[in-house]
């Protein structure tokens, strides 16, 4: 039974909106006046729920309220939520950058937080000097940094530039160096904000591997990311924040699914969407429909049913190499995408101004579960994307028609789409 290393109790954080000025001073005076009479802070009682979109009545807002959770040693906890749900505030409080307004957090063990990579990097200093400075800021001793220096250098892959001021670095090199320091922190508890979103794919993979190592060594990790696939891959547990409160706590996969459900709730009953016209775009998608083979709009499909998409788009000026696309995702993980013309040169012909209607499909078999057409777009092949519409349809695939003896189509076999390819026996020798 592993022990609790982080215990958060009744945590709340109130922010004051608007600007600091004379009015703020009146509140301070008022607060002080209540305090010397032994009364409670009058401004703690008020405050709206943190909902960015609606205009509240109060100047005070609770960015986090009544947060309670525990983290056990060795757990990797993913924190999920929309922008402004309070994720970053929570991480800031846990990493002691700011204090809570009410409640407390109890922590066991050494904490290091990575809310940003390369904190305190000085552009005039060389890579080598910055490794030491950044390491020290993150809480490493000089001795510790020196002993890991070669490893860091190797990890970063910028050995050649190590004695050059970092202001001469490309942004990629800068991030590599910065992450190399961060990756070699050895705290008992690691707090990571969305820092992996930077860097190229190869480097991201390397960082992910490193983080997986970190959690494998019995260390506790708290991780915030918008990339739900990453949460699924790294985390053992998850919590979902919404408007400053915890709305779900459980396994990583359940958490991401709960979160997605809440995100798509606004969309998932729609089977057709029309987009407002923007005259400045040379090409634009006007509307999009999701339907079955019989041209009926629906969001429910069978494993062996193709999912049809119909798009209407307008060409306002004569453009070459128009290219339409769709992307499909599941649990925030990218599954596949398709482009209408970007496959062979003869497809990339010129299109005259006018309104076009196209029909395409996502080929069955698609395994059971909930999928999301995360974007449709139109652009010029290899040049630019002109208009992209995100989060369109959420559709469900039911495993109703397949014979369960054939496990190829079972979600338990992994993967989301099935390639029905031929397996040809090319040689056979009978045993004597």
């Amino acid at each position, binding site marked *: 039974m592993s*022990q*609790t290393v982080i*215990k958060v109790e009744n945590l709340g954080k109130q*922010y*004051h909106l608007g600007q*600091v000025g004379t009015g*703020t*001073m009146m509140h301070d005076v008022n607060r002080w006046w209540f305090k010397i009479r032994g009364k409670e802070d009058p401004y703690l009682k008020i405050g709206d729920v943190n909902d960015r979109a609606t205009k509240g009545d109060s100047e005070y807002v609770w960015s986090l309220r009544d947060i309670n959770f525990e983290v056990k040693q060795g757990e990797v906890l993913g924190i999920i939520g929309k922008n402004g749900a309070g994720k970053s505030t929570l991480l*800031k*409080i*846990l*990493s*002691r*950058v*700011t*204090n*809570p*307004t*009410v*409640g*407390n*957090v*109890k*922590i*066991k*063990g*050494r*904490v290091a*937080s990575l*809310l*940003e990579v390369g*904190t*305190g990097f*000085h552009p*005039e*200093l060389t890579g080598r*000097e910055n490794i*030491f*400075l950044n390491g*020290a*800021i*993150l*809480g490493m*001793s*000089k001795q510790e940094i020196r002993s890991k220096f070669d490893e860091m250098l190797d990890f970063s892959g910028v050995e050649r530039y190590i004695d050059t*001021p970092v202001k001469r670095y490309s942004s990629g090199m800068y991030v590599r160096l910065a992450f190399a320091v961060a990756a070699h922190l050895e705290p008992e508890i690691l707090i990571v904000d969305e820092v992996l979103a930077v860097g190229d794919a190869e480097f991201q993979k390397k960082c992910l591997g490193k983080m997986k190592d970190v959690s494998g060594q019995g260390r506790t990790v708290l991780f915030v990311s918008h990339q739900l696939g990453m949460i699924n891959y790294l985390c053992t547990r998850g919590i979902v924040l919404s408007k400053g409160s915890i709305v779900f706590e459980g396994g990583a996969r359940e958490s991401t699914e709960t979160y997605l459900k809440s995100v798509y709730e606004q969309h998932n009953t729609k089977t057709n969407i029309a987009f407002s016209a923007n005259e400045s775009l040379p090409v634009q998608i006007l509307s999009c429909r999701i339907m079955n083979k019989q041209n009926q709009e629906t969001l429910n499909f069978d494993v062996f049913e193709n999912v049809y998409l119909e798009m209407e788009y307008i060409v306002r000026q004569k453009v070459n190499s128009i290219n339409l696309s769709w992307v499909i995702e599941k649990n925030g993980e990218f599954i596949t995408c398709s482009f209408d013309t970007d496959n062979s040169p003869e497809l990339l012909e010129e299109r005259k101004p006018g309104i076009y209607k196209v029909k395409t499909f996502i080929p069955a078999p698609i395994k059971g579960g909930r999928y999301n057409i995360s974007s449709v777009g139109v652009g010029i092949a290899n040049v630019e994307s002109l208009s992209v519409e995100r989060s369109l349809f959420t559709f469900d695939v039911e495993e109703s028609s397949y014979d369960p003896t054939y496990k190829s189509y079972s979600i338990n076999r992994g993967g989301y789409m099935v390639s029905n390819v031929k397996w040809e026996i090319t040689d056979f020798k009978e045993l004597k």
Partner: protein
Amino acid sequence: MANENDWDLIIEPKNKWYQLDIAALWKYKDLLMLLVRRDFVAVYKQTILGPVWFFIQPIITTITFTIIFSNIANISTNDVPPLLFYLSGITLWTYFADCLNKTSNTFVANAAVFGKVYFPRLIVPLSVLVSNLIKLAIQLCLFIACWIYYLLESNTLSPNYSYLVLFPFLILIMAGLGLGFGILISSLTTKYRDFTFLVGFGVQLLMYASPIVYPLSIVPDKYKWIVLANPVSSVIETFKYIFLGEGLFNWFYLGYSFVFMVVIIIIGMLSFSRVEKSFMDTV
């Protein structure tokens, strides 16, 4: 298995009345030294003269003061060579003023770093103290060189060598005053920036209330208390008394400066620790 209630760290809305965690500061001593190093390396990168600038500043100021206050305004320096007189005041004053100026914007200037990672915030003002101490040591060499030159060339100097032991104590008071005022102001400026404006010319005004461009002895008696109320004055006077044989040395006034320093440091620390946890929300 460790006791379930045996927590290493408890994050709460406010600090206990005052907790100065010396152990935590000590753990970050490497960071302090690296910040000092950064200050030195970064400031003079891409300059031709580099550290020579440490000398140019006091030399030009001294020459300017000599021309304006000694040659034009004819303010007496009590038989001390004017150059040496001004240089001594400037050297010590610069240390105090730099410490104050640079620590007074600790929170505002470091908001980017403080907003992303935790370390004892006091490390930053302390590193300012140390890097300015190194600068002071370099500038003192300039002073000592001039001093030896005049010691050999003229007989107007009568240093009180026996009081030389007080010298580190003088530096301590100056450092303490700079730090105390600096962190006090830095905590006040996180929410209301008004004080930033005060520091700029306040420090300059304070210089004229210190015996730097004039000796204390020529100040009329009815204004003397103003100068002596300034805790920096007796430190500069004592410094001049030791090296130049000119100036006022009085245990009472020096004691006053010391007590003043201790009080301002306590007030500064108190306000600093009150602010350091929540300043990110108001800065």
